[in-house]
């Protein structure tokens, strides 16, 4: 008999699930395919690259029940408490009429070999629920996290734009409130702890409880979006239990915008951050659109991107340029430090045992200052940066009065270009100043050669990005418009 108070409880399509035993690192995909024999959701890569495993996860937010596309292959089952998991099987019944999204995919030949198809259908379903008549740009953004090797994508885009029908009649939309009520009843008011020893799932009841739980289990792994941690399991087979899940905690999803500072709770996803941060600092929008795909942006968190300390994380360079700070917590103790100081060395951050990232504070860009942010990668989307540069200058009466420049992919950590900054400050903001500052890059950075780019390429492009930034501040650079059907 399942103890309802100490079980992971969620709704799978129509069925209520209560798991009082489960492997701590079991993925949602394995749960669906192996335990529930729901084989419509496919595994193409097991690391969140291809999107064949896309399902929807509905979760309660301050704005109500929100359905988001996620990669089931790297989402842990234990993180699903009080959610509604929707798979391809929920869209239509066998031999019954197809869902409008499915029908459009048939009509426009958006499916060939069919293996990526359920994932595309679910990604489009998520889009259509919120945006029944999407623009081409919206379609393309929604499909960034899905790979197809057959169709050349165009038929899928056409299908997305041709979906007939209004979402009002869709069961998920029509019954949103009832489902929200059901999920509210599944929320845990006490800590859930399933399993034992390392094979244990801990779902804290609050941030305070998280602080306690982490203090009690300093060897545990805190998991927010799992877009990185998921791969530790599916790709590197690491033993990372016990796991403490945090993405369900409302406090950690809080976004505030006050006194010139946007503060993001540690579990704020890229998607949630976009609304607050990109609206406030539009120069981030180009970068935000190139972080993973929609699934990764729905799951992955800014806090996690920071906490993992990767030298090629997408968000640290612009946040450092903006002067962001990070707040760490252990028990009831908190300390706040500049983000750039958090990164000490490769794989090493200034985070003591038992400390966790609680929030990130990002100051607004003061009026009149320039910010440019450039991600350079071999592939347009779904690719790790070869390098990523963020440039911020303040120009007063034609003279640079302050500069903050930070790079990813140029050193073992996200790092400021202090020599370049020094070469700019006090000088006129001119082509001559920019050219004179270029040699300083070699003082700041000695990048490595790897398969993403050579050291020489990185250094040269870092310099060129400063030139591009300057050109943009002069209105002389523009983004290339890709011609689309």
């Amino acid at each position, binding site marked *: 008999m399942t103890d309802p108070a100490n079980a992971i409880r969620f709704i799978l399509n129509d069925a209520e699930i209560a798991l009082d035993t489960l492997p701590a690192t079991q993925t949602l995909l394995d749960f669906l395919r*192996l335990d529930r024999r729901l084989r419509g959701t496919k595994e193409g890569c097991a690391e969140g690259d291809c999107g064949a495993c896309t399902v929807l996860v509905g979760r309660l937010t301050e704005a109500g029940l929100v359905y988001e596309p996620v990669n089931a292959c790297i989402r842990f089952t234990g993180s699903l408490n009080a959610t509604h998991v929707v798979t391809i099987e929920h869209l239509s019944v066998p031999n019954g009429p197809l869902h409008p999204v499915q029908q459009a995919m048939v009509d426009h030949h958006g499916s060939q070999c069919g293996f990526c198809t359920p994932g595309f259908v679910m990604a489009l379903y998520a889009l259509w629920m919120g945006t029944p008549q999407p623009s081409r740009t919206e379609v393309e953004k929604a499909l960034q996290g899905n790979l197809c090797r057959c169709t050349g994508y165009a038929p899928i885009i056409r299908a997305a734009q041709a979906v007939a029908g209004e979402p009002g009649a869709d069961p998920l939309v029509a019954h949103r409130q009832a489902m929200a009520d059901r999920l509210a009843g599944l929320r845990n008011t006490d800590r859930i702890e399933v399993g034992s020893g390392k094979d244990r799932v801990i779902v804290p009841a609050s941030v305070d409880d998280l602080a306690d739980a982490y203090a009690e289990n300093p060897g545990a792994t805190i998991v927010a979006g799992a877009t990185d941690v998921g791969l530790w399991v599916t790709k590197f087979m690491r033993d990372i239990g016990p796991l403490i899940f945090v993405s369900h905690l409302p406090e950690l999803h809080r976004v505030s915008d006050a006194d010139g500072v946007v503060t993001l709770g540690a579990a704020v996803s890229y998607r949630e951050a976009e609304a607050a941060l990109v609206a406030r600092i539009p120069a981030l929008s180009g970068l935000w659109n190139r972080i993973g795909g929609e699934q990764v942006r729905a799951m992955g968190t800014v806090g996690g991107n920071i906490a993992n300390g990767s030298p090629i994380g997408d968000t640290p360079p612009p946040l450092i340029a903006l002067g962001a700070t990070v707040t760490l917590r252990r028990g009831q103790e908190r300390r706040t430090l500049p983000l750039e100081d958090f990164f000490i060395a490769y794989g090493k951050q200034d985070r003591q045992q038992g400390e966790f990232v609680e929030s990130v504070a990002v100051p607004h860009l003061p009026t009149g200052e320039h910010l440019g942010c450039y991600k350079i990668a071999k592939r347009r989307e779904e690719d790790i940066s070869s390098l990523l540069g963020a440039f911020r200058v303040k120009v007063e009466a034609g003279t640079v009065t302050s500069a903050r420049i930070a790079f990813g992919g140029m050193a073992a950590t996200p790092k400021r270009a202090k020599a370049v900054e020094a070469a700019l400050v006090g000088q006129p903001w001119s082509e001559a100043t920019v050219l004179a500052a270029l040699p300083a890059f070699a003082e700041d950075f000695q990048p490595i050669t790897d398969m993403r780019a050579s050291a020489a390429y990185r250094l040269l492009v870092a310099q*060129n990005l400063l030139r591009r930034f300057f050109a943009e501040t002069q209105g002389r650079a523009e*983004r290339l418009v890709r011609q689309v059907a």
Partner: protein
Amino acid sequence: MDVSLKMDEPVAESLLDTTNQNIVSQPVDRVEGPLKVSGTARYSAEYKFPGLLHGVLVSAPMGKGRILKIDAGSIEKLPGIVTVITDYDTFLRNPAQGQDEEAPEQGVRDVSYFGQPVALVVGESFEAARHGAQRIALDMRPDEGRFDFAARKHMAEPKKRSRKAQGDLDAALAAAHATIDAIWTTPSQTSAAMEPHAGIAVWEDNKLTLYGSYQMLASDRLQLADALGLKPEQVRIVARYVGGGFGGKLGISAESVAAAVAAMRLNRPVRVVMTRQQVTEATVRRSNTEQRIRLGADAEGRLTAVAHETITANLDRSSFSEPASASTQFLYGGQARLFLNSIVRMDQLLSASMRAPGEAVGMLALECAMDELAETLGMDPVALRLRNIPARHPMDGLPFSSRSLAECLEIGARDFGWSDRDPRPAQRREGDWWIGVGMAAAARSNMLIKSSARVMLAPDGTAVVETDLTDIGTGSYTILAQITAELLGLPVSSVEVRLGDTDFPPSSGSGGSFGAASAGSSVYLACESLRQEIAEKLGIAPKDLVLTEGMARHGNVSRPLHEILSGPLTAIGTIEPGEMEEKFVQAGFGAHFCEVGVNAHSGEVRVRRMESTFAAGRILNEKTATSQCLGGMVFGIGAALTEDLMHDPRNGAIVNHDLAEYHVPVNADIPALKVRFLEERDEKANPLFAKGIGELGISGAGAAVANAIYNACGVRVRDYPITLDKLIEKLPPA
């Protein structure tokens, strides 16, 4: 009734031009589409059996050496482990090549490439087996491996019978007004079909059934039987839905043999699914190539010399070598000619056929060489190609069965607005982007492979088609339904097509762009025979019979099928290649036009638009054919810009063995693509008058991108893929 046709003569008239049902060539929706969009199409790993066990392959963590011992005891006590299957002699060293009738090289005690499967851990669950496969102790003796192509290429040995020569090449080049002599390199590539290789083996009553993800079941069955020492009749392969192939699933590979050995030993069904990393490391790859092209032309731009020499890599004793000059041999004229393939022996993953083996990479070199030649001559690249279309095959003098290359070039250029192009590079700038255009021709040989199909027509006006052809996403289900519906006068919805089962008549399989035309012709012949039978029953000449809407009509008389047929009628049709392929050069042709932007600051390349025109005989379904071409063009863009399977020269490991780091194009890499088909019929090819289309789109596509890059920024990169780091240092001042 069994009927067969050997293509020794042109087919005078195709029924498809006379039945007037307006079904063939129409953009009919994929018939299995509803199953695929609802996730209910069942792929190989998804069959359910009581007592099913899970196997995970153990990959050798070294690039070369010998396995001394696999210590099953080291994991025996882990929870859920059933056993460790080792069979050093039977396990495959590497997959079979497509259409082979025997097993590929077997024996895994010696490790020939990094990641070679050497054993199978069987567990009660996938997790248990995977855990065991990770933990098992291997006693190995690593040896020095051959991993560095650049250091070894001088040891390349000519491939037997690959040398073709005519005239005095050196003299022709010396006398030429303009010459090109350059080397292009292309990297290894992987098919990266979305469905990983997977199989379930069931051993029952001395018979093996394999639910496998394969493209060519008839030959796969022979390979598998041979590998296991079984008679072909003891082996059945089922592959109803295949999640993409692109050559990666032509021949049997390690997972199916391992699953079969385990199932036979344990007497329980065993499923083996490869991880994405294993698919990349232990199935097949397209070899990297080094291609030297020499062209000579007179002052009017007429080619006088054409040489295309290719070095590829492969394992010891594997004779396949990417035939990069396949289309070079017949695409353009020029009296003096030389073609040669050489193989470097490497301890790296087997090289085999990936989509358009030959043209896919050969045209990346040839069509860029033609662009360079046009520039040297001061000629328009389209005009240079038009001038060099040979009247007949330049070496053996054979005529072409059908060829609309000139029309593709001319119409494609017109539609694209090619005449607006500035031939001088680095002239057009939009913001910080250099903009340019480029073009390339496309050509891909057409083949016919022996193929059989059974068609049953029931009195109630329904039909069933059975053949072991697979549908790997190409549209086989749909096209065979259309042909049957057209010829038997039925709605498409009344035709049930059953594919992917060796219990059905053997077909060509899917590969080489020949599936639709070969299997489609066998269905055509079966339907033609059924029409004759109905005509006989009515006592009329077959040509007077009209079948439509489930009725048989002749003159003013119209009768429903159930009045004519007392029971189902069945016919098996078989098509075979014949003298037509010896008397005519058969190929599909096309032309690609492309516009790109190159970022002046970063060297990033963005394809802005690509428009391609093709002619490949009758187009059997405008939707599926268009998609095949779009998919091919995207492969071409990937080959030009992003796809690069990298071996570590120190230990032979594939560095980017997953979809995060092996960069297939994402949607945003792909701009508006336009596909146009020209009307064509090829009565020498087959009774459908159709030619293959699955690989034509890739041929030349990447070269059009490369040529556009040159036009945009003035940098020629002959080392594919053209990544930003190869452009940046040579870009004109930003």
